[in-house]
């Protein structure tokens, strides 16, 4: 078994991948191990000192900052005995006098990763096999000096898939630049924006815009602000005002800049004033309390909720509904989407929120990026299909091609550290 391991490492690797996919199988395997252990339990042993593990090595873990060292060994010949407990791993750093225990693994495990080393420091490791009654003589490794690598080659798959998806998006952006108009399906929530603004104008009421309650360090907030730009551009043409209470100071600054610019580009810079956007409080429910108050007192005709929302989503949407406002919501918080869907007139579900500003801009380059996203989705579907076929056929067919293929498709989508 050891020979085959050396001769074909990748085969072992992919077998372990398959095993990890067939999680339900694991208990059965360990059951076998327990059974075989039981059979030897009857041996009368007074003081049982196990044989030490062999070929103990410590090597620098590749492609990291030098903070990991992999210690591995061949199992002790007594490993399968019922009395056998496991292995203690000790470490001594350069300049330290004694070995310190850094970890223990149960019987049957032949590696341990030390995750607390420093780059360019020498370490020596010691592995001790143990039973309840005694310890085997320790085995000491050679000195290992973990180092800091330049490039993390283990992430080749992230790089590859990332390059493919980003490449698709960038390709369609630049492709569109050359003037080819792309078809984009209708998104109901966005089609409704003009009507909603028109309705506010007819009623002579304001528009309420909530960009979520997260700060600018959430890409959902940025998405909300970009939609704000488009909405403000339309609103600027009418004699109505945007009312935008915000929960974050940086959002306050950004939103003002955005609306101001939108009014300027609509040729009505004088209609803009700073009071359209005001800061309330950073506190989630304090903010909601105030916005609820604003809603019932000002009775806006249209409410936009576009950004990152948490539990307050339903409080806002229900209050908005009670004043008879048209409500257009959008968020990428999966837990809050059900509430918006239930209580609002239109909801942009997840991806649609990010697509919204591109859609509204109607600019070829922006629309091109949506096409790029679709290529990503197609690729994800193909990958899932191939992966499912792979794992299924691996069970039915005994073919090295199927094995290799299945290993590859899984490796492509797993993040190895």
């Amino acid at each position, binding site marked *: 078994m050891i020979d085959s391991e050396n001769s074909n490492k990748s085969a072992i690797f992919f077998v372990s991948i398959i095993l990890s*996919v*067939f999680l339900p199988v694991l208990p059965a395997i360990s059951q076998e191990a327990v059974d075989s252990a039981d059979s030897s339990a009857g041996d009368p042993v007074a003081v049982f000192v196990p044989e030490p593990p062999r070929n103990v090595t410590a090597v620098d873990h590749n492609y990291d900052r030098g903070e990991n060292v992999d210690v591995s060994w061949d199992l002790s010949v007594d490993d399968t005995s019922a009395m056998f407990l496991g292995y203690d791993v000790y470490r001594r750093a350069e300049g330290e006098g004694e070995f310190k225990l850094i970890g223990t693994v149960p019987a049957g495990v032949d590696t341990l990763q030390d995750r607390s080393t420093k780059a360019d420091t020498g370490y020596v490791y010691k592995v001790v096999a143990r039973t309840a009654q005694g310890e085997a003589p320790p085995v000491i490794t050679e000195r290992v000096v973990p180092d800091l690598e330049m490039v993390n080659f283990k992430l080749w798959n992230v790089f590859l*898939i990332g390059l493919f998806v980003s490449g698709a998006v960038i390709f369609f952006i630049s492709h569109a630049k050359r003037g080819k108009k792309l078809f984009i399906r209708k998104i109901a929530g966005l089609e409704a924006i003009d009507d909603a603004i028109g309705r506010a104008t007819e009623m002579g009421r304001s528009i309420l815009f909530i960009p979520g309650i997260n700060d600018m360090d959430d890409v959902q907030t940025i998405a909300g602000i970009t939609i704000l730009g488009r909405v403000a551009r339309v609103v600027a043409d009418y004699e109505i005002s945007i009312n935008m209470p915000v929960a974050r100071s*940086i959002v306050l600054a950004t939103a003002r800049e955005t609306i101001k610019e939108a009014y300027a580009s609509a040729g009505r810079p004088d209609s803009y004033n700073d009071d359209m956007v005001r800061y309330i409080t950073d506190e989630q429910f304090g903010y909601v309390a105030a916005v609820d108050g604003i809603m019932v007192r000002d009775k806006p005709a249209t409410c936009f909720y576009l950004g990152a929302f948490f539990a307050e989503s339903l409080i806002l949407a229900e209050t908005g509904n009670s004043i008879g406002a048209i409500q257009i919501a959008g968020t990428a918080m999966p837990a809050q989407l059900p509430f918006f869907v239930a209580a609002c007139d239109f909801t942009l579900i997840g991806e649609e929120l990010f697509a919204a500003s591109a859609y509204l801009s109607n600019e070829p380059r922006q629309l091109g990026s949506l096409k790029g996203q679709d290529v990503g*989705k197609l690729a994800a579907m193909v*990958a899932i299909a191939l992966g499912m076929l792979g794992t*299924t056929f*691996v*069970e039915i067919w005994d073919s090295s091609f199927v094995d290799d293929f299945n290993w590859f498709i899984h490796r492509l989508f797993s993040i190895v550290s």
Partner: protein
Amino acid sequence: MEEIGLWLGAFFTLGIISFLYKDNPWYKISESVFVGVSAGYWFIVSFWDNLYGKLFVGVFENQDYILLVGGVFGVMMLLRLLPKGGWISRWPLAFIVGAISGFYLMNYFSSNVMKQVYSTMLPLFSNEFGEPVFSASVADSVGTIMVAVGTFAGLIYFFFSKEHKGVFGGAAKFGIWVIMVTFGASFGYTVMSRMSLLIGRMYFIFGEWLKLIE
């Protein structure tokens, strides 16, 4: 002392609940207090944790001068208060947006796309170890296939550049149904935990404040 806290708590609890009937001065007082106090609270927390704890201690005690970059950007942010300084406050903003884009791109990419795709690659026949594949549990297989088909249909619904017509439109429609089941299920599931919150407040009113229940 404890009593003061109890009565204040009860006053504000009922003040907020009174909003359910309609907007009224009691709610307005509660709201105004809440806004003022909470804005002050977060300002103070951020002041001691970030301005003092991170910037001041970091620069003056730990000599971590790189933090000054953050400080400089912070000051640029404030320059918008000057009549002519508005344009420079876009720099910290550009910095934030750039960093967030880069960070989110990689993060979502690896943790959402790759991980979700990986965990959907399940075998069509889930089998028990050692038994022939086709004696697998039917329910498990149906479940796996349902997850895969549902995921596919859901993704098809999100396609933007292809018109939802014909077979493709049918798949997209099935996708939105799956998504609706998801929403309905999460909604139904959350009702219970939302009720617990109200039970907690009612317990405060009837138990701790009015001492009507044990």
